[in-house]
């Protein structure tokens, strides 16, 4: 299986770090940088630009906020946005606001081009490559050394699915409280209107975006090989 960090647009971070550890092997293809959308933020709105005109965007964000309470509040946005005026721009109004501490991903559903961004002043941080892996001989599971994750799984041309995972929870395919969580394909839930059930397994070209809600560390990977083997 090959995993590739995508190109992060918007001037936030450009990375092409290879992940070769932890049972991962194979080659790394160049991410789809040519048509990467961009993200812009204001107090209440997230705007995605440079998308395929008339296309669809899967928008996924995780926010940490103290604005409404004296304690941190974790909020998640998972939406499908349609460019119905075909201007290559879509916007989403966030309730109650766009938290300063938030991480967002926008994925062009047609092309799979993706961007990760954050409001100005918030430094995005990747989950260390050593913390994630594909379990051996499995094409339907993805494991990360985290206690909590909010995930978005996208398959170009087909749709997007999300999953909130906590260590030891019933959706954690790696049982017990052991500091690892394992996302299983069948546990994902559909995003947007399609209500299409998730595929049985990950496959080449799929994009996985995950955020640790505790500190907003993220990972964005593309399966460049078939996780079950072959290409």
């Amino acid at each position, binding site marked *: 299986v090959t995993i590739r960090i995508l190109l992060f647009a918007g001037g936030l971070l450009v990375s092409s770090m290879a992940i070769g550890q932890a049972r991962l092997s194979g080659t790394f293809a160049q991410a789809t940088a040519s048509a990467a959308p961009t993200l812009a933020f204001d107090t209440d709105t997230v705007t995605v630009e440079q998308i395929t005109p008339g296309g669809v965007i899967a928008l996924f964000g995780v926010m*940490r906020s103290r604005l409404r309470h004296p304690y941190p509040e974790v909020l998640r946005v998972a939406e499908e946005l349609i460019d119905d005026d075909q201007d290559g721009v879509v916007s989403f109004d966030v309730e109650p606001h766009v938290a300063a501490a938030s991480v967002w991903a926008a994925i062009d559903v047609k092309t799979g081009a993706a961007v990760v961004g954050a409001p100005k002043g918030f430094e995005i941080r990747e989950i260390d490559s050593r913390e994630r892996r594909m379990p051996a001989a499995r094409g339907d599971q993805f494991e990360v*050394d985290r206690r909590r994750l909010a995930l978005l799984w996208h398959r170009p041309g087909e749709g997007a699915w999300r999953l909130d995972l906590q260590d030891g929870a019933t959706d954690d395919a790696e049982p017990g409280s052991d*500091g690892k969580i394992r996302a299983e394909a069948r546990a994902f839930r559909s995003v947007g209107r399609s209500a299409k059930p998730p595929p049985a397994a990950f496959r080449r070209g799929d994009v996985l975006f995950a955020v640790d809600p505790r500190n907003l560390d993220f990972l964005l990977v593309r399966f460049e090989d078939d996780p079950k083997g072959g290409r």
Partner: protein
Amino acid sequence: MAQRLYTALLSLFLAVTALFAQDDPNRVRGISTVTSYDVSELDSVNLFNGNLTLRIPIGQTYPVDGILSYGLTLYFNSNVWDLEAGLEGSTVAEPDPYANSGVGWRLSLGELYAPMTAPDRTNSSWILVEGDGTKREFADELHFGDDPDVLPPGVSEVRYSTDGSYLRLKVTASERTVESPSGLTRVFDLDGRLVRIEDPFGNWVSISYQTNPLKWTLTDKHGRVHRVQFEATGILEMPWIVDFVDLQAFNGTRAIYDFQYQTPHPFISYHPLHTDPNQDQVIQLPILERIALPEPGLDYEMVHNTTGLSGTLASLTLPTLGRYEYTYRFYDFTGGDIFSRSEGVANRIRIDADGTEIGRWTYTNGPISLNPGTTATIVSTFVGASEFFDTVNYFVADRFVFGHGLPFNPADPEGTGETIRYLSREVWPGAAGNGTALRRELVRYTGGGGTRLEYRRTEYLDDGDTFADVLLSNFDGLGHYRTSTTGGNFVAANERVTTVNYNPEAGIFDYDANTDTMVENTFEQIDASEPWLLETFTHRVVTESPYSERQDYCFDAATGYLEGVRTRAGSGLSASDLLVKHTKNGSGNTTEEPLLLCVDRDDRPARGQGLTHLVVDDSKLRVAVRVLLALLGLARALQAVVQVAQQLRDRLVADGMTRCRQLSSQLPRAFARPAQRRRRVAAAQRLDQGIEPLQDLRIDHLDSRPTAALFSNPTGGQGRLIQLPDPLP
């Protein structure tokens, strides 16, 4: 036993101040924040939220020179969980991210976090996390409406702490410097790690860091080297824990403090409010169970709860074999959300080495029938098996009003005008509400958010309804009331006015929170390029009619060093004034403290000596430890100098007048801060500082008591006698 109990209790009423900072008072850790505490030698209980803070010195205090000394202290906070609102309406508990020695325990030199970089990433401003877990938040300005700072070259930001600690933060491209009012500076690297401590005289301690395995190395200017070695846990929430502390000891030897944990690292239950039903209800975390001291056979032993209110400390056995035991309960607050409960101490028990219970305190929190509609914590102090007295501590317990967590009942104020006051505390001879209270304490707070104590009155109900009070005024905007006026009805005309003229060029910042009006604002911020020395003053006057005493002080403007004190014989300068002049070396150590007595021609004793008793009672004002000691020292010296002067007068008289003139002629310049400040009136106001500096930061962040002293003090004589080797250097 009762005497021992009273001695051990030391139930201090620490009314300290803060605005709502990073931590909500309902769940705050540490001891340097808003609210009041029940304090003993090793532990303190936050009377508002019940949090237990425990303090174990690791090694001795190492004096460097000047005002700098340092040491390591291990802290425990019983509020071991962070709570937050998770996804899908869940409540999520996470272990305290600042703990590094097992659940709840923290050995730290302090860390500084830039906005959005603290572990939970929701801090909108700079945050300093002190060794005891106290979080100090920095704002753009000291008072709302202050003029923007003129940034010195290379400085990109200047910030001020907002909790009454009066710290100034300077940010440059390569480092961040936190300045304390005493002149001490702490330098942090870009990762927020403390790398250097320095005093105004150039004395220093540096800290370097090694990763994998994590290790701290402390080095001071005398070449002493100490190490804190960590071990990896493989646990995400606490990847490194302190393995041992290796300190420089006497005569070239080393002192090793070995931290021992349960093995394997146990699974403990989450906080009870951790609500996700699909979540596994246990988490693997390190649990500290023993610290072996350098002296053979001596150790601290800890037992923690691993279920229920898990992670909390159930007992601590001292090296003397004396023991503290704790039980816990929920402290409930209004609001109905996840911060409306806090796990706090229910019972605190002290047990002697032979198993005899020598003290018991029970804490009951919540609305009380004594004053319906109010929230209070009742501390029942047991003396013997059944005899006890209750102390009722009232609080502002509404998160949505200013002053949340402050120690008073906001309803039903008494008095009017400048003596309007609110009930803060009552002491009852038995159960609260039965019979007549012995004491009542009433207070009034002011300042932004009402967080600065301005008036306190103690009523002695068992003594003919007598009372004593103190009114504080003339606030300098930098943490000091310059004037305190005591009064009462014990005897007629017992009013005493004490004025310490702190930071005279700072002007006055007088905001009345009770009427929401700015009474007077001539405050001038210290230029960012000037030294941050807030503990200096020009004179101190104590008046208790018909007597008055004045002392003039001379501090070095660059270092804050007290160069001289002149005690006036009369109202004006006189040949009979008494002078104490300090001389320091390059390291800031006092090398000479001659007493110079200016004697007038009729050879009378200095008149000021008759008022020396007035010098020492300065507890209501914020006086730095160093200055207070100087005052106390002066009081003693004044008594002695009369005798000395009689013996040395012939020699001193020869240049006595000359020296008097020299010092007095220096006053206008030497007492003043460099006159480079702006004058203006703020357009608006916010006050976020308090009467006291919480703790003197020279002590707060690194200081500890020496190992040898530990057994004679923190244990309070509890337990067995132990034989110790020579104290460490």
